[in-house]
């Protein structure tokens, strides 16, 4: 599903969306997704379906509210997975010809009404094993302090984030959360979360985000 598709008559299903490619006369290919339509001059190029961070109308953070609170012992650490929203970018060469949101779109205010930020919002469990989902974030939690630490939600920076894909799955880069004494520190490492995943973007990290308003 993710990856390259030849510009020939075919039908591609991606999440809840359907893409039709129809070969037209004189080497033209018609791209259709719902009401969206593009006319592409073939020229031997391929159509790329790539995962994109779920920035929605233009937010910079993703907030995942956990169904159950995670509790981490002093000096402890463990890893797990989140099923998270992603978006799809359709490209020819380096040109984006379509971009769409799959699944549920929802936002929330992270922080106070005076100083907070609007974040993409998702509710889900913290999985120990990789879940069957389209968008996945692998998270490593560590608690270097001498106190027990709890976490109700995970917020990490996504605007401009590198993405990865492997088959039908889209991945955010590996997310490291350090439960420090004052605020949890979140690092979007830019690194591949699983082996063999194809990178989309520069691989640059988005480091040192502090979850100031973690309750």
């Amino acid at each position: 599903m993710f990856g390259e598709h030849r510009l020939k008559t075919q039908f591609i299903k991606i999440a809840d969306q359907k893409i039709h490619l129809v070969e037209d006369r004189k080497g033209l290919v018609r791209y259709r997704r719902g009401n969206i339509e593009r006319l592409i001059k073939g020229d031997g190029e391929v159509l790329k379906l790539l995962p994109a961070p779920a920035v929605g109308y233009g937010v910079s953070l993703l907030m995942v509210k956990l169904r159950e609170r995670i509790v981490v012992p002093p000096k402890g650490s463990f890893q797990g997975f989140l099923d998270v929203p992603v978006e799809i970018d359709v490209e020819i060469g380096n040109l984006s010809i379509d971009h769409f949101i799959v699944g549920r779109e929802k936002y929330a205010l992270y922080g106070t009404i005076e100083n907070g930020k609007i974040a993409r919002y998702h509710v889900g469990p913290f999985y120990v094993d990789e879940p069957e989902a389209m968008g996945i974030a692998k998270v490593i939690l560590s608690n270097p302090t001498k106190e027990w630490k709890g976490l109700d939600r995970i917020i990490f920076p996504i605007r401009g984030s590198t993405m990865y894909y492997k088959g039908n799955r889209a991945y955010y880069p590996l997310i490291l959360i350090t439960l420090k004494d004052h605020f949890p520190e979140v690092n979007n490492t830019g690194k591949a979360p699983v082996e063999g995943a194809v990178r989309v973007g520069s691989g640059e990290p988005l480091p040192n985000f502090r979850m100031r308003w973690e309750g």
Partner: protein
Amino acid sequence: MIDINASGNVTIGFGPTNVTMSVGNIITAIAVFIVGFLIAKVVKHYILTLSKSTKYVWVLNEDTARTFYNMIVIISAFYALHVLGVLSYKVSGTSLSDIFTALTVFYFSYLLAKKSKDYMVMRAPKEKLNEMQVKAKLFYYTVVTIAFFLALNIAGLSGRLSTIMAAAGITGVVLGIASQAVVANFLAGIAMYFDKPLRIGDAVRIGNVEGIVHDIRILSTRIRAWDGTLVRVPNEKLFNSEIVNLQKYPARRAELTLGIAYREDAQRAIDIIMKVLDEEPYVLAVPEPRAYVEELGDSAVNIRVWAWVPSSLWRGQNLLRAEYGLLQKIRDALKREGIEIPFPQRVNWFAEPLRIKFTDDEQES
């Protein structure tokens, strides 16, 4: 008056002063001007050629080429007049040379300030554009003001400025009163720069005016109203007004009221409304939306809906009504679930029994 003597010298009379110039001087002056003119042409052509290949088009462009052309032509004309000795002529105790120098300094300082202002705005990162626009304007006015006084000094008028101003006493008072509003607006503009009650791009309400701040100038602020009209608000008025910034904070609460019939289950209606709010992307999950019975009205049980939405998506009217049709979605959901939204109705009671009289026409039918 022009005289030509036997040795070929030309004498031109400027009032009480006579300027004598030799034929050699005239030829030199003409040559100087022609050479300057040609150099100006070459420089202009060179800059225009460069502008087609350089990436620094902000500095090497037609505008710059024209400026350099003008500058060289003016300087060569200036020098030619100097060769002729015309510039030694005095006007009110100041030589023409000083006056021309002053004008030239002021003109090119003005051009430099204008170019720098444009450059500052153009090179500003998007997130600092608003701030940079105000800074660039302040820089521009500061340079122009300094250049003005510098030019006065070069022209030898600064020493007489106070005398001139004193002499113009009554005129000054009149002008002072007339320019009071201008000065007030100017000072308010400066104060607004530091106080920052609003920025370019903010959505604001000032009195009856509501729209996006389009530009903050030194005397006035321009607001593009939601209907696309331009409203100019003098800075002084704006500074003393109550400014409501509609997008200062990240989220705003939208409020709706709708009524259901008395016979309907209010809690069920609230549950349906909450489901619609949950499905609406731009109704924030945090802070949570709310729906509650606000009032037992004349014709309906009125339910109030509070929904927080991203401020940046608020455009003109209530975002949820205008752009995303939330009210309509709620109405459709209630209708689908069989919840009645009543018309206004009135129950009339009569103190005595009504007597009904049938007319002949009705009896026949």
